[in-house]
């Protein structure tokens, strides 16, 4: 993970997030395992955002290498599935992205007179 990397640097590398990465990141506001993320995103977007396992795995490992999400130590139980959750840096990046989307939407509405 990139603790030594400054937040601005992380932001520069990670933003703009792809649609898949953005949805995965915000889904991990609560700890979930890979398939849980897939289900949550599909449910949330009413099936519009489909995450194939290859896409999901790739995005999870990218987000993890940027330090935006982390693995959670398992509290026991029989489930060997790895749990992920958003980090502090991940939350900041997500907030930054949300502001960016808001601004984009506002500009679009302004110019189209909506």
């Amino acid at each position, binding site marked *: 993970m990139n603790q030594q990397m400054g937040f601005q640097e992380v932001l520069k590398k990670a933003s703009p997030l792809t649609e898949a990465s953005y949805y995965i990141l915000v889904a991990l506001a609560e700890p979930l395992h890979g398939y849980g993320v897939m289900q949550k995103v599909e449910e949330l977007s009413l099936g519009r955002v489909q*995450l*194939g396992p290859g*896409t999901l*795995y*790739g*995005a999870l490992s990218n987000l993890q290498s940027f330090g935006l999400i982390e693995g959670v130590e398992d509290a026991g139980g029989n489930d060997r599935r790895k749990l992920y959750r958003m980090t502090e840096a991940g939350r900041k990046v997500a907030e930054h992205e949300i502001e960016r989307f808001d601004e984009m939407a506002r500009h679009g509405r302004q110019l189209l007179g909506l």
Partner: protein
Amino acid sequence: MTETETKQVFKVIFAWEDEKEEKWLEQLASEGWHLQWVAPFYYTFVKGVPEKVIYRLDYKMTLDKDYADYTMIFKDSGWELVTVMGNWHYYRINPSNGRIPEIYNTNRAKAQKYRRLLLGLVPFLPIYLVIFNPALSLFNRGNGEEISLFLETVQLLMFVLILFFIYAVVRIILKIRKLESQSKE
């Protein structure tokens, strides 16, 4: 016990032709021949009911630390891991309600697969250049003519193999470029 009917097929398909390979496996499944296992260029099929099955190949190093998590994600989302050859993973799924499932939803995500493939292939080149080739040359000193000829033949074969290997790397790089230029961002 009922005898299961199998057949073996020798077929030369290269690493950059994985989509062609997927289509071929789907074609055979629709004829009732379902993939059982794969050795290099050598495929074993078992006879069953003709079915519409989707095959997808993925490249992932089995020695990676997160390998268990990787396979779990595929399993949970309904993909059956049929067999693994080298680091190539052969997955299949039965399409439901007419939709063709994909393991990668964007070209950009798919390009990552070929990047992993490159990382898996490239270490072979220094192994050849730094270890194998000098070792052969060293052995070749002060040997009889026959052994010398044999070693030179091996060296020549290896050289041809390396040329082919470089060609494969170039093909894969071109594929990554194409996928990344087609991605919408």
